[in-house]
């Protein structure tokens, strides 16, 4: 067995299929996107090399509106980190205390993650419907009819209305990650602290949180990169509208690729998305390392 592990050829041969898949499915498309981003190309006919013009246009053109889309994504990322994750952490800490019905609560909170995003999108479309949606109906029922609104049709409220289901859907996902971390804290550490007179809050602050820091880091990375890549729920709920109020880089990319036939520009957005995701992952790693 050890001989097998020490033979480079065994290692190469058995890694090769996965490596080919990894390169073919992940690395090659990134390379191709980078290549296409230097061209003016409609996807069908001849490509014209234009250097960095797509990148320049992306950051300067008002009609494309990339900066606004990026701003929306960063806002979602901030909300994910400062609203969604604390909520998920709170739930994980409470459920980690072996409360009654722990498993049932776990299943219920995790359920939105299992449901198809399109189904969730349709569900929230009905909730927000200006005429018969449960939100407006409930507001009218409690005498707050003046707050009833065309939630997804108004530029002022559409972004917030789209973010709510996104944040709601993935609370359960982060909760499960953090719950696994909380559960892995050795009971003797907790017991020792309790014997020393530590309160629940102190146990969580000085024992549980430092213990699950690596998982917190992963959760933050997932939350930030997931926000930068967010697409499906926004596509179903507003498709970037009204008037680009809920546009994020991914919806903009789809619009460039398939509605405007600008494959070069779509590829440019894809490349920038990849760079941003990598940059944020590195930054988060750095921040957590500094703290350590």
């Amino acid at each position: 067995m050890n001989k097998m592990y020490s033979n480079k050829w065994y290692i190469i041969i058995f890694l090769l299929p996965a490596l080919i898949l990894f390169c073919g499915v992940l690395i090659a498309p990134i390379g191709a996107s980078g290549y296409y981003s230097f061209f003016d190309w409609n996807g069908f006919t001849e490509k014209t090399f234009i250097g960095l013009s797509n990148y320049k246009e992306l950051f300067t053109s008002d009609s494309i509106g990339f900066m606004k889309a990026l701003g929306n994504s960063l806002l979602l990322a901030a909300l994910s980190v400062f609203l969604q994750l604390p909520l998920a952490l709170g739930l994980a800490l409470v459920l980690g205390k072996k409360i009654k019905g722990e498993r049932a609560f776990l299943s219920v909170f995790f359920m939105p993650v299992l449901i198809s995003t399109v189904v969730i999108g349709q569900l929230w479309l009905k909730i927000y419907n200006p005429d018969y949606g449960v939100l407006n109906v409930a507001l009218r029922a409690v005498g707050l009819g003046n707050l009833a609104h065309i939630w997804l049709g108004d530029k002022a409220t559409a972004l917030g209305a789209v973010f709510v289901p996104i944040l709601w859907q993935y609370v359960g996902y982060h909760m499960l990650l953090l719950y696994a971390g909380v559960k892995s804290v050795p009971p003797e550490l907790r017991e020792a602290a309790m014997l020393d007179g530590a309160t629940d809050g102190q146990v969580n602050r000085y024992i549980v949180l430092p213990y699950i820091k690596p998982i917190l880091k992963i959760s933050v990375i997932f939350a930030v990169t997931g926000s930068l890549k967010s697409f499906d729920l926004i596509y179903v709920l507003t498709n970037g509208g009204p008037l680009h109020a809920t546009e994020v880089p991914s919806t903009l990319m789809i619009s460039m690729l398939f509605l405007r036939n600008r494959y070069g520009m779509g590829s440019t957005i894809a490349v920038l998305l990849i760079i941003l995701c990598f940059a944020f992952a590195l930054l988060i790693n750095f921040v957590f390392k500094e703290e350590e």
Partner: protein
Amino acid sequence: MKKILALILALCMVPFMAACGGGGGEDQGAADGEEVTLKLWCIATESDANRPAYEQAIADYEAAHPGVKIEMEAFENESYKTKIKAAMTGGSSDDLPDIFFTWGGAFLGDFVDAGKVYCLDDIYANNYTEDQIPAVMLNNSSYDGKHYGVPTTFNIVAMYANMDLLAQAGWDKVPETYEELTQCCDDLLAAGIIPFGCAGSETWCVTEYLEPIILKSIGYEDLNKIFAGEATWNDPDIAKSVDVLQEMIDKGYFDPSGVALGNDEVKANFLAGKTAFYQNGSWNTGEVAAADFKSAVAMFPVMNEERSTANCAIGGPSDHLAVCSESPNADLAAEVAVELGKEICHYNYLNAVGLPAWTPDYDTSSLEPLMVDIGNIVNQCEGMVLFGDTAMSADPAQIYLDYVAKVYGKEIDGQGFIDGLTKDLQ
């Protein structure tokens, strides 16, 4: 033990190796006497008014040609645009259908330019006469004098009216002038009835309101030139048209909920008697006629008699079938597509889903009266203008739609609309 472990690992590799292997090997062509299956992509989903016509036409064709099977796959309108473009860009014939639905004008033109579409000239020349398919009906799918598409219907933008609701507001006829229309809308509002519904979340629905107003302000010749990129958007009468639409919105003529709704919901509101008018494609005629109220159809009134007349419309033969040039059975698919398109057109007309692009050679005595009215409107037309987002190629069309959305969202006024389009498109 080591051998067993190595064997297990080697077996684990098999699926990976298989996945890496080429997918070819399937016999694409069909030997003589074997059944040939042709893949057809379209937007005739279960809820689409065209669906029965597609199903009937396919059933008829398969019954008459036992060796041919047509596999229809239908996609939702907006996602289909993504699907077909992605498939065309992909390049592999395995990813492509044999026959596909397409809009005429620039949408099909992009595929033709890329050499992805089979030329149908021989089929038309050998099997069909101009009496069956008038040359004008092939204009929107012809490029450099060659025909690439089969029109499946002919539609215009029509203004449907719920006459029961109009009667409640004291009107027994559809308004014929703009002054009458505004008076009618005021009367409807006074009676607690919302005049119009428009789906703000689908910008093409807003163009169904804006384009007829522009058409009736500047005339079909000038609007055709603008859509073709031969004239500038910088026309004060276009700015006025935009202001007219925004004035109608300001006066409350449009259901405010519409900004967040899709076309299906807005249409459902009209069919349920919530709004008095619904301006959209004439493919809705069958559904309107089947609604539980007395209906009528008209055109948006003339706005500027110096430049336009009542006898012009937005529309034309826009829906087509086309054949992928890379189809392994392209010759057969071309014959099937033309025959299928003709029959879809036939059933669509009888089902009141659209006017006939092909000359009817069947009994039309049981035709829906509302469809007959639309036919009469078209017969009086001197000129037509194809839907703007179809007439223009993808990039300018999307920029144009963005500006239309800004108009409906009151982000820009008429002057902003013409200034913006002049700057971004010319």
